[in-house]
């Protein structure tokens, strides 16, 4: 040792001690890196220390569910005050940890199904939240000041050396393991199978310390499957307006779509409506997108050149394998997704993001935060934000930038592009909840949960267009807050916000093309029927894929 007092390698020494404790505790139960599943608690107790920063792989889709359950079984008198860092809180176990006194602090990105319980536990003082991040932000902090001491991850298969195959849903695993393994941390993985030869190596074995064969395959959610049968005529209309009024207008070639029926409708109109407008080859060639089943007809019709994905989608495995020109796949043929890389791609290399939201205020700030829930936003803020570090030019980016700068002087006179950030919403959601509000619920939630800033998903100054069934508001063309407000009111329909519009000013904005109605861009609303969809059912998607897409059973109504 070069430093006799251990001053410069305490982490490495700690790591050595922890591994030694594990070896002692497991005895013959440890074969190489392989730990029997029934020894999981023993292993975790041996390697964890109170106050450790722990990353429990909880992703958007796949979950290290066996390790999550095992972690909740530990004795809180031995293991307590863990600081959990993980992108998604999806399982009840993720919160049980805090209830059981095993963990106390949390840094995360998204809590979807657990958002209501999380809010209650925060209010009761059971959880101390560090911050709610975007995905990219949280991954970045893994490499700065939130580096895990111990990571509990999941993979499809492992070999005897601990090499891992993460399968199509690689998701967060590389980012987590890299941060942990290269900062003297310990990586423990649950796998669905032990094999002699992996199809490919996604994580090298010498980054992995312990491998556990889980009794059941890890949980995985088909989050991105939208049944075309549920797409409404209104959504078809809005998709037509998006394609003709925005995609064609800017020549958008590289883009990301949020999850939802609105965007699924757009994907399903590409080979039909967009084709009839002669747009093939002119829009939508390159995507940062999960393998949405709704994109199959467009891919089959030759619209799509490339798709890089955050994660995979259940049932799409064979289809992806057979379309390796489009998707990123390994030599073995299966998809390699990577959430961190795709988030970066979506942020820097895409010209447009389009997605839905729950509330938009008069400045165009939008949020899906509602009172009584602490949900976070996952990746949407990375996708739905202008990449101010961007320097490469494309026609769509330049045109948006030029519109924003036209007639402006001083610092705004410098030629520069801008990302198109489109919010697509119906003016009323179900149960007549207005999508346009004077004040976002996010303010009340911030106060309730004592947050430093209101949880805004997409900031108004990043939003370039708001598209509703009433029309498209192009905020790039607005000059001044008042115009911006009236442009938003002018597409807010019969919501109180919309009814309070200044009619004369809205008509002025319409004359200037700041607001465009369907008829202004040559769309007859009566043409907006479901028959325009390239697939109207899940079955149609299977047919379009030539039988390669195999939807999960809950989507099979035939």
């Amino acid at each position, binding site marked *: 040792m070069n430093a006799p007092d251990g001053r410069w390698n305490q982490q490495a020494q700690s790591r050595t001690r922890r591994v030694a404790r594990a070896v002692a505790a497991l005895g013959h139960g440890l074969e190489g890196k392989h730990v029997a599943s029934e020894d999981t608690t023993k292993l975790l107790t041996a390697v964890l220390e109170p106050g450790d920063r722990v990353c429990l792989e909880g992703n958007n889709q796949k979950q290290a569910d066996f390790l999550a359950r095992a972690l909740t079984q530990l004795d809180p008198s031995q293991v307590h005050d863990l600081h959990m860092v993980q992108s998604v809180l999806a399982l009840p176990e993720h919160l049980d940890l805090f209830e059981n006194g095993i963990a106390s602090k949390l840094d995360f990105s998204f809590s979807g199904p657990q958002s209501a319980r999380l809010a209650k536990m925060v209010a009761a003082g059971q959880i101390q939240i560090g911050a709610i991040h975007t995905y990219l932000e949280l991954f970045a902090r893994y490499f700065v000041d939130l580096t895990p001491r111990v990571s509990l991850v999941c993979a499809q298969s492992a070999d005897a050396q601990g090499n891992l195959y993460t399968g199509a849903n690689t998701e967060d695993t590389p980012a987590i393991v890299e941060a942990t393994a290269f900062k003297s941390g310990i990586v423990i993985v649950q796998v669905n199978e032990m094999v002699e030869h992996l199809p490919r190596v996604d994580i090298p074995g010498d980054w992995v310390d312990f491998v556990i064969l889980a009794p059941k395959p890890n949980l995985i959610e088909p989050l991105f499957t939208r049944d075309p049968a549920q797409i409404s005529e209104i959504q078809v209309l809005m998709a037509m307006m998006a394609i003709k009024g925005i995609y064609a207008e800017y020549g958008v070639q590289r883009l990301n779509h949020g999850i939802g029926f609105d965007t699924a409708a757009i994907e399903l109109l590409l080979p039909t409506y967009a084709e009839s407008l002669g747009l093939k080859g002119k829009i939508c060639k390159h995507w940062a997108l999960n393998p949405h089943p709704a994109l199959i007809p467009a891919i089959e019709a030759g619209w799509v050149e490339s798709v890089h994905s955050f994660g995979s989608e259940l049932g799409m495995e064979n289809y992806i394998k057979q379309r390796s020109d489009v998707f990123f796949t390994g030599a073995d043929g299966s998809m390699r997704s990577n959430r961190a890389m795709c988030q970066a791609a979506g942020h820097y290399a895409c010209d447009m993001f389009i997605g839905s939201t729950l509330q938009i205020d008069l400045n165009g700030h939008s949020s899906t935060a509602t009172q009584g829930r602490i949900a976070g936003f996952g990746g949407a803020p990375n996708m739905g934000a202008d990449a101010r570090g961007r320097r490469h030019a494309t026609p769509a980016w330049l045109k948006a930038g030029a519109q924003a700068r036209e007639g402006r002087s001083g610092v705004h006179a410098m030629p520069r592009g801008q990302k198109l950030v489109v919010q697509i919403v*119906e003016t009323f959601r179900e149960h*007549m909840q207005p999508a346009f509000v004077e004040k976002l619920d996010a303010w009340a939630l911030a106060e309730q949960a004592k947050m430093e800033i209101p949880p805004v998903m997409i900031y108004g100054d990043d939003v370039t267009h708001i598209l509703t069934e009433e029309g498209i508001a192009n905020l790039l063309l607005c000059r001044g807050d008042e115009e911006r407000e009236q442009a938003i009111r002018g597409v807010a329909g*019969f919501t109180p916000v919309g009814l309070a519009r200044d009619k004369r000013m809205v008509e002025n904005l319409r004359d200037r093309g700041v607001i465009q109605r369907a008829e202004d861009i040559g769309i007859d609303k*009566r043409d907006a029927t479901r028959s325009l969809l390239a697939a109207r059912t899940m079955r149609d998607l299977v047919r379009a894929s030539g039988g390669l897409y195999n939807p999960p059973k809950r989507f099979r109504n035939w």
Partner: protein
Amino acid sequence: MEKLQFQLVGDKAPAAFIPILVGVVGSGNLEVMIEPLADSPTCRVDVITSAQGFAPIWRAVMQDFQERHGLAGIAISINDMGATPAVVSLRLDQAAAALHGLTKDNA
């Protein structure tokens, strides 16, 4: 459930016609029936809706419809199961189109 009625002035009275029905009373949907209302200078609208407290929005939606179509001598009857204004407007336009014999075939 709430019952609403509006009388909207218009000047375009259609020739005699048999009642027109579009839409169905399903969740988030509605049915709209248009019938002749002999010698009336107005468009009378009767709404039965499962939702409560949206009278001002219904009024605005109907006024907007009437601004576009200016109908007289007709009665519009609506049974609604919580349709959004977007869907209501769409059904009204579909019914009006059928009235004008302009129905597009929704293949």
